[in-house]
């Protein structure tokens, strides 16, 4: 299914995690379902590189036309980069949530935390309800 890529993992709060191409680093963003529910994203408040977050700690907020939502960090780790293009073009979260709309790049502390996240199948059944 196009809305929930394979190889990604998900939270019940509609964030995703995917491998960033460097060992131990992951990209975090929100799912296609989440951006659709939020509507037009008007800005995204992200942390600074170097900030560290516990699993499911709030790392930022996403402001859409209809509502504001907290962003939850799916895994504990340190932010090594943020997607600075979202500052200029927050609508990338709507148009390409799994690609150009990524939010933070995080270096994980404990890779075993990834096992607690939802598989694409489990996330698909979550949003069907």
């Amino acid at each position: 299914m196009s809305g929930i890529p394979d190889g990604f993992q998900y939270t019940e709060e509609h964030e995703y995690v995917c491998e960033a191409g460097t060992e131990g680093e992951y990209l975090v963003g929100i799912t296609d379902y989440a951006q659709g529910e939020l509507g037009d994203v008007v800005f995204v408040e992200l942390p600074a590189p170097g900030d560290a977050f516990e699993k499911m700690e709030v790392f930022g907020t996403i402001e859409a036309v209809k509502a504001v939502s907290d962003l939850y960090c799916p895994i504990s780790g340190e932010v090594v980069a943020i997607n600075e293009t979202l500052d200029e073009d927050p609508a990338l979260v709507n148009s390409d949530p799994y690609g150009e709309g990524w939010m933070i790049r995080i270096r994980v502390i404990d890779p075993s935390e990834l096992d607690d996240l939802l598989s694409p199948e489990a996330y698909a059944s979550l949003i069907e309800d």
Partner: protein
Amino acid sequence: MSELKRTPLYEAHVALGAKIVPFAGFEMPVQYPTGITREHTAVRTSAGMFDVSHMGEFLVEGPGALAFVSYVTTNDPALLSLGQVQYSVFCLQDGGIVDDLLVYRMGEQRFRLVVNGANIDKDWAHVAGLAGDFDVELSNESDDIGLIALQGPSAEAILQPLVDVELAPIGFYWFAEGHVDGVPGIISRTGYTGEAGFELYLPPEATRAVWDRLLEVGGERGLIPAGLGSRDSLRLEMGYALYGNDIDEHTTPLEAGLSWLVKLGKDSFVGQDALRAQKEEGLSRRLRGFRLAERGFPRPGYDVIFRGAAVGPVRSGTLSPSLGAGIGTVYLPAEAKAGDPVSVRIRDRDIPGEVVPMPFYDGGSLRR
């Protein structure tokens, strides 16, 4: 809670992929797949089309119609010529606003009152309860009328080929009776967006056909359907009041900046004594616009800080798509003036801004 109602255009919204939300007791489209920002921009630059069939319509007929409408509204319907429309409010005896409305002069002894969808039952009880001393007949036509708002600089060019009346001579806040693609209705040069445009009052059974036809012929001029989300950001950029946010039973038209709707010198009307007294004593607060100087989305309910103290909630607020800045309204002490610093508490931060005159946006096609 009673079951949500559907407008004659509900099926059209679903077919267009709209996101449907409960609003004013109806299942209404908040946005289409294009999204609120593009719908907003379409209305500002070409045209957008809104289903506003949830609005209520009351017909007032009889020898006492003019006197009755004058008694229940604060503006003066005697100023209306046949074919003219007037913005007005119903007040309580204490001056609080029951609703804001449009008054259409349909005939010498016939007026149509167009009220907010969320207030139909309340307004009906209010006006029916005041009708006893007047020689009038009231009818609630709310379920018998479909209403499409076609708004934007291209609206007239889109509509003209479909109607049998000449649109150019119809002035702002005037209307004509005619046919839209063969369907009889009222073509009213009114709106809630600050752009040129029309509101079309139609028989419910034919409203869908007109909606589809407009989309078909208007598409090449950039017409797209637009939902409640963009309707709200468009009206707020113009500083137009929204009942339930900017005005309610605990605010008076004088406080809300609607003193131009209050004709204290006419014959007796509901709220006259209280409004006269408030005018003589002077206002303690006034609805003002603010604009944020830093990035922030001032949502209704957030605290507004003025001279170091929280003075009340944001009444209406949005991130203005046209201005790219947070804008909103708030009741401030009457001495507040444009340029005064004000801030909005957004989560744990006070985002600075200043009091600005309304409208916030002055680039609309309405006055061009």
